[in-house]
C-alpha cells in the first residue's frame, strides 16, 4: 500500500503529461461525484459505520461541497488515507479535496496545496492512565510516549520536551490504530495527538474511564481542508463552503429553518441564500448553493454538535470553535 502510493507518485510526477491543474470543478461535475480524502477511521471526524456509510465532521464537510457542486450530498466517494500517505494522492489528482483533520502549517501550505480555511481549531494534548496519578504534562519527564508518524505531533512533542528540559522516549507508528494498540498494551505511558482525536480514540479503549486527558495544550493545530495548488476556482468553492456554513449559523439559518429563511426580508440572508445577487454564479455554481448545503448537511453549528459536540458521544465543547459573536474565533467574511 505504502509502496504502491510512492510508486504511483513517482510515475505520476514523472510520466503524467497532464498534471491536474485547473478544472477540478469541471472534472467533479463530469464525473458526477466528489472524491474526498478522509482518515482511516476517527470517530467524530471521519468514520465508516457498520453499514459502510461514512459519517463525521470532516465527512460532512465533503458532503457540503457535494451538495453545493452536485446538488446531492450523497455523491461523495471517500478515500481513506493514513496520516503518512495523505498528501500525495491530492497532489497527483487522485482526490479532489483532503478533508482529514490536517494541521495547517507553513511547509505544508507551500509543499502540498492550499488550506481552504480552518474548520476546526484544535491543539495537541496527552492522554494517560489514571493509575499513573499524573495531573500535568510537566510531570511526564522520562515517560515513553506513543504517537503517529508523519504528523506535526511528532515535532510538537519534541519541542515541548526540549523546551521544558525533560527526557522522553517516542515510539512512532504508521497508523492511528497501531498507536492506540501500543498505548493500550502499556508500551507507552502517554498517547499524544490532537485533543479532538484523543477524545475520539478514548472511546475506542476497552476501559475508557481508566484514562484521562491532561489539561495542557502544547500546540496550535488549526485543522482544515486542503486543495491542490493552481486551481483558484476550486480553492474558492471549498473555502466558501466553509464560510457559507458559518454565515448560515451566524444568521440563524439551520436545516430546519432554511425554507422559512428564504422568505426573510433581511438583505444579508437574501444574499446568502441567493434570493438577491448572483454570488453562487460568481463561484461557478448556481444561486441556491447555500440553500442546498444547509438543507442537506446543515450549518456549521449543526455539523459540529451532531458529530463531535454535545449531541455526539464525544461531547467536546465548542471552545475556540464558537462563532466570533459568541466568544470563539470562527469568523467568516461577508457574502457581498
Amino acid at each position, binding site marked *: 500500500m505504502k509502496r504502491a502510493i510512492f510508486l504511483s507518485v513517482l510515475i505520476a510526477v514523472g510520466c503524467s503529461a497532464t498534471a491536474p491543474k485547473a478544472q477540478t470543478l469541471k472534472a467533479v461535475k463530469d464525473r458526477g461525484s466528489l472524491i474526498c480524502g478522509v482518515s482511516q477511521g476517527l470517530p467524530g471526524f471521519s468514520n465508516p459505520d457498520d453499514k459502510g456509510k461514512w459519517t463525521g465532521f470532516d465527512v460532512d464537510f465533503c458532503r457540503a461541497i457535494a451538495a453545493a457542486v452536485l446538488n446531492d450530498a450523497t455523491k461523495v466517494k471517500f478515500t481513506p488515507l493514513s496520516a503518512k500517505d495523505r498528501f500525495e494522492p491530492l497532489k497527483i489528482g487522485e482526490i479532489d479535496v483532503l478533508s482529514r483533520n490536517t494541521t495547517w502549517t507553513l511547509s505544508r501550505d507551500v509543499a502540498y496545496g492550499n488550506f481552504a480555511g480552518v474548520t476546526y481549531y484544535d491543539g495537541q494534548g496527552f492522554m494517560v492512565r489514571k493509575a499513573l496519578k499524573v495531573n500535568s504534562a510537566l510531570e*511526564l519527564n522520562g*515517560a515513553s510516549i506513543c504517537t503517529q508518524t*508523519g504528523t506535526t505531533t511528532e515535532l510538537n512533542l519534541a*519541542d515541548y520536551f526540549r523546551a521544558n528540559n525533560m527526557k522522553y522516549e517516542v515510539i512512532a507508528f504508521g497508523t492511528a490504530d497501531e*498507536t492506540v494498540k501500543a498505548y493500550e498494551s*502499556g508500551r507507552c505511558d502517554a498517547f499524544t495527538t490532537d485533543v479532538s482525536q484523543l477524545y475520539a480514540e478514548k472511546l475506542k479503549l476497552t476501559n475508557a474511564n481508566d484514562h484521562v486527558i491532561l489539561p495542557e495544550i502544547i500546540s496550535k493545530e488549526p485543522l482544515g481542508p486542503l486543495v491542490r495548488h493552481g486551481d483558484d476556482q476550486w480553492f474558492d468553492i471549498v473555502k466558501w463552503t466553509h464560510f457559507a456554513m458559518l454565515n448560515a449559523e451566524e444568521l440563524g439559518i439551520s436545516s430546519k429553518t432554511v425554507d422559512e429563511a428564504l422568505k426573510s426580508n433581511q438583505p444579508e440572508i437574501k444574499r446568502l441564500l441567493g434570493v438577491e445577487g448572483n454570488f453562487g454564479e460568481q463561484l461557478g455554481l448556481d444561486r441556491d448553493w447555500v440553500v442546498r448545503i444547509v438543507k442537506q448537511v446543515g450549518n456549521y453549528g449543526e455539523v459540529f454538535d451532531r458529530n463531535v459536540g454535545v449531541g455526539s458521544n464525544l461531547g467536546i465543547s465548542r471552545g475556540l470553535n464558537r462563532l466570533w459573536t459568541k466568544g470563539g474565533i470562527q469568523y467568516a467574511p461577508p457574502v457581498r
Partner: protein
Amino acid sequence: MSSPGAAPAPPVPLRNDPRARALFYQIVLLALILWLGFEFARNARANLATQGIGSGFGFLANTAGFGVNQSLIPYNESDSYGRIFLVGLLNTLLVSCLGIVLATVLGFFIGIARLSPNRPLARLAGGYVELMRNLPLLFHILFWYLAVLGTLPSPRQSISLLGEIFLNNRGLILPAPIAGEGAGPAVDTLIAGCLASIGLKIWAKRRQNRIGEQFPVLWCSLVLILGVPFLVLAATGFPVAFEQPQLRGFNFVGGIRLIPELLALLTALSLYTAAFIAEIVRAGVLAVPRGQAEAAFALGLRRKLALRLVIVPQALRVIVPPLTNQYLNLTKNSSLAIAIGYPDLFAVFAGTTLNQTGQAIEIIAITMGVYLSLSLLTSAVMNWYNAWIGRAERR
C-alpha cells in the same frame, strides 16, 4: 527456383538482411529508452516547478526536529535530516545483520533436524517450517510485539533475573559495562586474542594437511579470547564497573535497554526467515548424492562428522545461491518495522522525513538507492563466498 551455375543470387534487400535488421531494432530500442528517460526527467522537472516544489538535496542539512526511540549514534532533535538518515540506515543494518545471523544458525539446525533419523525431532522441525512460512510476516511481527512483548508487566512489576537484568513492556534492560581507567590493555589483548585465534586456525589447518595431526584449536582459542584478557583484567584490578539500571519515575534509568520494537522485529524476521533457510538447507543436503554419505559412514565417520566434513561442504554449493535470496528478503522485509514503531530507514526517512519535507523524488531515490546497494552488496559478498567454497573444493 535457382539452379546450380546460375548467376549469384541478387543482393538481399537491406530490410531482409538479419544483421541490418537487428542493428535497426537495437537503435530504435535505444532511442526509445533514451527518449523515455528524457521525457521522465523533463516531466518531473516541469511538474515539480508547477507545484512549486524545490528539488535538490539541500533539505538534508535542515533540522529534523523529531525524536527517535533508538539510535546507534548520538542524535537529538536539533540534528539534521542527513543525520536522521544515518540513524535510520544504521537501525536497518542492525536488525538485518542480527536477523541474518540468527536466521542462518536457526535455519541450519532446523534444516538438519528435519532430515534427522529421529522421527519426533524431524516431525517437530517439519511442523515448525510449515507453521512459520505459511503465516504472513506482518502477522509474526504483530504477534511478537502485541501478543508476547506487549503482555509483559509494566516497569514497576518487571521480571527480574538475578536482580541485574530486567524484562518489562519497555524492553530488556541490562547492566552497562563502563570501562574505567586502565581497561585499555584488556581490550587490546581481547582484540589480539581474536586475531591470534584466526591465525591459529589457519596454521592448524595447514599443519593437519601436512602431517595429518589435529591441533586443539577450540581450547587454545578460548584461552586466547577469554582467558588472557581476564588475567589482564585481574592483574590491573578489574577496572570495569557495571552501571546498574535504576527504576526511577516511569522507567529504568541507566544500563543498556533493548527496546521491544527491536526484539519483536528481530524475533519475527529471524523465525520467519529461518523456516525458508531450513528448507534450503534440507534441499542442499538432499542434493548431495547418497553415495557420499554412505562412503563417509563406511569410512567410520559418525553422523555428526560425516555431516560436517563430507555432506555440508558439498551441500553448500546448492545452498548458497538461494540463501542469498533469503538474506535479501530479510533486509527488505525489515521495512515492515513501521508497523510497530521501530525507527528503521523506511520509517524515519521515507516516512517522517518525506512527510515533513515533501521531497518525494529525492527521498524515494535515496531510499531505493540504499536498499539496492544493500542488496547488491549482499549478493556480491555471497557470490564471492560461493566462488570461494567452489575453489576450496577443487583444491
